[in-house]
């Protein structure tokens, strides 16, 4: 078997036969999930394909699956795509996508619709609703769900879309069941760990498409209810949404991969519980979309003015690399700082509240989690993202790029640091090492000792001014980075949550959005004032 660009040691002779079976089957299932009538995908990984024609793929999932392979293979390639080094949690250097893979990926993604790809356009609607149709349709659907019509109309619309999704679900579950059954026949115990992970990764991806209830069931009823309550609470209090879901999604994928053997029973139970869960979803939609007050409390935020941000420390890149190989930067005194966002310019504000230099610590947060907690930092994604920022800035030099972040008391694996030490370290990291071509605005995070238990010495970070300003406007997530593109009037034009490199689509999208906002003429001119 020859997989696209595969030269990895994973595909050893020993694993070949098994992988072939699994890969062919998985792809079949995955494609069946995305489009039951699509059968060509059955031979996707069977054909010796050293020069993949990405434009031949019809669905994003196919691109994603192919790119995922390349991504893995590139670990073993000495060809560096980025000028920054990717480092895994073991401090081992890793390479990234090769340049040609990037080009191919872009070609692959371009002009594809988003069939069955789970997209979060924002807002509190949980991942239960799969948007089916074009991106434009999805946006319109979102607007209609959140902005227009009466509550009855919104509920009707939501139920309509839920039914479309739910009708196809039994078929997807059956496909999953077959997948598990087949997988079980393979000699798991004797194969390399890599095979398991490989399968896990692919499965996780296809499981994404299978979707919400699988995830919910794997966590148990208690968690479903907890998340449900969290979602509603967040809506009612106008808080940002999604934190809890993101957290549990991570747990879900972990469990899914590592407890693969239980999957069959899980899917069986999902099939058995389909009707009940469908009813449960519909009830939930009625509650969520029937609540006018909640809807109004969390509107789609495009075209709203972005708040003025503050910071205790500001550093600026000199865009010149010094003798030590690091980009030079300079601390900007308070009196010399220009406002963020800067009036009259196209601003791109990247929120890296967690700092992407932190280390995964597997700390989860309880219901009601806020942005003060740092968790699940994955440096490699950040490195990729920063490289994207550099590319975007190179393409659109007129865009004013600012990274906002905050202190947490430590950086990476450091000893406790003072805010000054930490700010300096962060500047060295983002501007110096990662060579961010812009500004870095750092807030000092106030904190207290965990109250109520003198034996428990944990530090609890308190909200910062920026966090308060952005609350209810657009999530400043500790777990995700977030990109805001503002027009020259300081209004939000586009924002994107999460690591936006995945499958390359979002970067392309971001470029398109920036190009669009550059075409837009400012209404208030360069003297425009920002109101809140």
């Amino acid at each position, binding site marked *: 078997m020859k997989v696209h660009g595969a030269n990895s040691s994973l595909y050893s002779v020993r694993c070949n036969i098994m992988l072939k079976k699994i890969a062919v089957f998985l792809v079949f299932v995955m494609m069946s999930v995305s489009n039951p009538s699509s059968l060509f995908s059955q031979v996707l990984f069977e054909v010796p394909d050293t020069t993949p024609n990405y434009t031949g793929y019809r669905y994003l999932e196919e691109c994603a699956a192919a790119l995922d392979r390349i991504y893995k293979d590139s670990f073993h390639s000495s060809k560096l795509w980025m000028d920054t080094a990717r480092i895994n949690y073991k401090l081992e250097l890793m390479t990234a996508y090769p340049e040609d893979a990037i080009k191919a990926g872009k070609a692959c993604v371009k002009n594809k619709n988003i069939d069955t790809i789970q997209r979060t356009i924002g807002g509190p609607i949980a991942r239960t609703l799969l948007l089916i149709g074009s991106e434009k349709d999805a946006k319109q659907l979102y607007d209609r769900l959140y902005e227009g019509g009466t509550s009855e109309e919104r509920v009707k619309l939501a139920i309509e879309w839920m039914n479309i999704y739910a009708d196809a679900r039994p078929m997807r579950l059956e496909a999953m069941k077959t997948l598990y059954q087949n997988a079980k026949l393979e000699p798991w115990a004797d194969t390399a760990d890599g095979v398991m992970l490989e399968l896990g990764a692919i499965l996780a991806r296809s499981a994404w498409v299978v979707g919400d209830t699988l995830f919910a069931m794997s966590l148990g009823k208690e968690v479903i209810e907890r998340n449900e309550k969290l979602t509603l609470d967040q809506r009612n209090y106008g808080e940002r949404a999604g934190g809890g879901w993101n957290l549990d999604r991570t747990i879900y994928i972990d469990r899914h991969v590592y407890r693969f053997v239980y999957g069959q029973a899980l899917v069986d139970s999902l099939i058995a519980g389909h009707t009940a869960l469908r009813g449960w979803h519909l009830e939930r939609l009625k509650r969520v979309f029937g609540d006018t007050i909640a809807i109004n409390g969390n509107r789609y935020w495009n075209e709203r003015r972005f708040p003025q941000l503050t910071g205790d420390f500001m550093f600026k890149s000199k865009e010149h690399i010094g003798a030590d190989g690091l980009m030079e930067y300079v601390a900007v005194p308070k009196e010399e700082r220009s406002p963020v966002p800067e009036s009259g310019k196209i601003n791109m504000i990247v929120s890296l509240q967690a700092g992407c230099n932190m280390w995964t610590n597997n700390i989860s947060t309880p219901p009601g989690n806020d942005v003060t907690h740092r968790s699940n930092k994955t440096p490699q994604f950040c490195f990729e993202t920063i490289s994207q920022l550099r590319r975007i800035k190179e393409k659109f030099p007129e865009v004013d790029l600012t990274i906002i972040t905050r202190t947490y*008391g430590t950086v990476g694996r450091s000893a406790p640091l003072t805010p000054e030490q930490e700010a300096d370290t962060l500047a060295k990291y983002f501007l110096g090492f990662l060579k961010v071509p812009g500004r870095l605005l750092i807030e000092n995070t106030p904190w207290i000792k965990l109250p109520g238990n003198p034996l428990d010495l944990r530090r609890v970070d308190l909200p910062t001014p920026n966090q308060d300003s952005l609350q209810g406007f657009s999530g400043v997530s500790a777990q995700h980075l977030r990109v805001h593109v503002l027009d020259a009037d300081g209004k939000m034009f586009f924002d994107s949550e999460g690591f936006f490199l995945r499958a390359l689509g979002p970067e392309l999208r971001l470029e398109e959005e920036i190009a669009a906002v550059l075409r837009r003429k400012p209404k208030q001119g360069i003297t425009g004032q920002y109101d809140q």
Partner: protein
Amino acid sequence: MITKAHSESDILGASYDSFQEQEDSAPRLFDEAAALDIIERIKKIADTDNDMYISVQSWWGGAQRWARNYATMTSDQRNVSVWISIKIKGLNRALSFNQTDDNSLKNAVDYLYKSSKSGSNIPDAMWVEKPTFVPKGKSVWSDATFNRKAEENGRAVYNLTQKSEAEGLLSAGFIGTVGARILNYSRTSYSGEQYGSGEASEIQCSCTVRHPKGTGSGWAGNSSFDLQRVDMARITEIAFDKCVRSLDPVRLEPGRYQTILEPQATAVFAEQLVLHIGNRISPEAGYGVFTLGGDAAISRYRTKLGLQVVDKRINIYHDPEDPISGTHPSSGMDAFDMIKDGVLVNFANDFEYSAREFHTTDFHLFRSSFVMKGGSTSTEEMISDMERGLVVTRFSGVEVLPGASGLMTGLTRDGLWLVERGKITKAVRNFRWTESPFFIFNNVEKIGEAVPIFNPGEWQFPFRGAPHEVVRTVVVPTIKIKDFSFTSTIDAV
């Protein structure tokens, strides 16, 4: 069928000459001067101001194994391990090997530099080093253990197999001795230059005696850093006694019985508690047995710190200076209370967690040696006032069940007896049980004197390890529990 044991000449004859030759040709362990010489040579070869760690470990192990009255293995092993880590381009590059000549050391250092050709220079500030933990001074060490000869182990086994053969029983077991010595060197921008050394020795002896027809089985064992504390004659005596007394067991209905757990059985539950205490991340991340619940107001999971989790009489702690626990003040570990008067008072975590979550550099590492105390009732006394119940020697096949209850399941083994009206009356067929340490330790009627149990450490020296990790000394009592859940009978003896 009983396999005929080795003759005395087989065990104690010429085969030990080769061991003696080995003893004469090289010492069992490097001394500190030899290790220091290696470190200095590496420093000279590397010739760098970068952060650097070097660990030179010397290890010796002698073992005697027997089964079915037949000595199956005698060994005397020794090895040296050199571990080098140099921070190059901001990353720690590490290599371990066991050759100590100049050429090998140079190759190792060259390899580290060659392997770091790719990649950017990461600012040191990003990876500020934690304070290096370097074991210092003499730790868990006994000359008697270290000087134990293979021939002496052989003689002990010979005597034992002769006895079991004479009585028509089968015996099996293992005697193992380990000695290890480390010299660590560390130079970091954070902590400066440090040297630390440590020594550890351990002896373990365990013996199973079974009836050839499989109708009875007895076990005993002990381990310690000190040979003097492991009475091999007594161990074999107990194993024989238990085997004979457990012959032809009767079948009892599964159910809840008042139960006396001998220390080896108690330790299974105590160790679970200690393992959970050793991992602060779990309860603070909302899972595990010590998590209390999510506190939405502060966005944290509350833990059971400060709450009573077991019977008020129970204390679990690690004290390097405690003479019973057998660890030493200089083992590099500090005194650490885990459960005090039944109250959970501490968790263990590493430096990074302390720095990040507590904003402090104080931290307690997990330690596997511990003492559990809480009473002084003798086992005889516990039996004498028992109306009807069971006495458990030990468990096997123990598994921890998922969930926050700490529930475990396993099998009784090598001696289970019925007590009726204050006396042991019958041997009982083994049970499967399902219990939680929290149920056990909250239903304690009486607690005995804490004694060291069989709980050997790593047979191989842990990678970059410290001596306190080699020897795990667990000191726990016999406990009498109001009821214990035996869930099914099993046929295994």
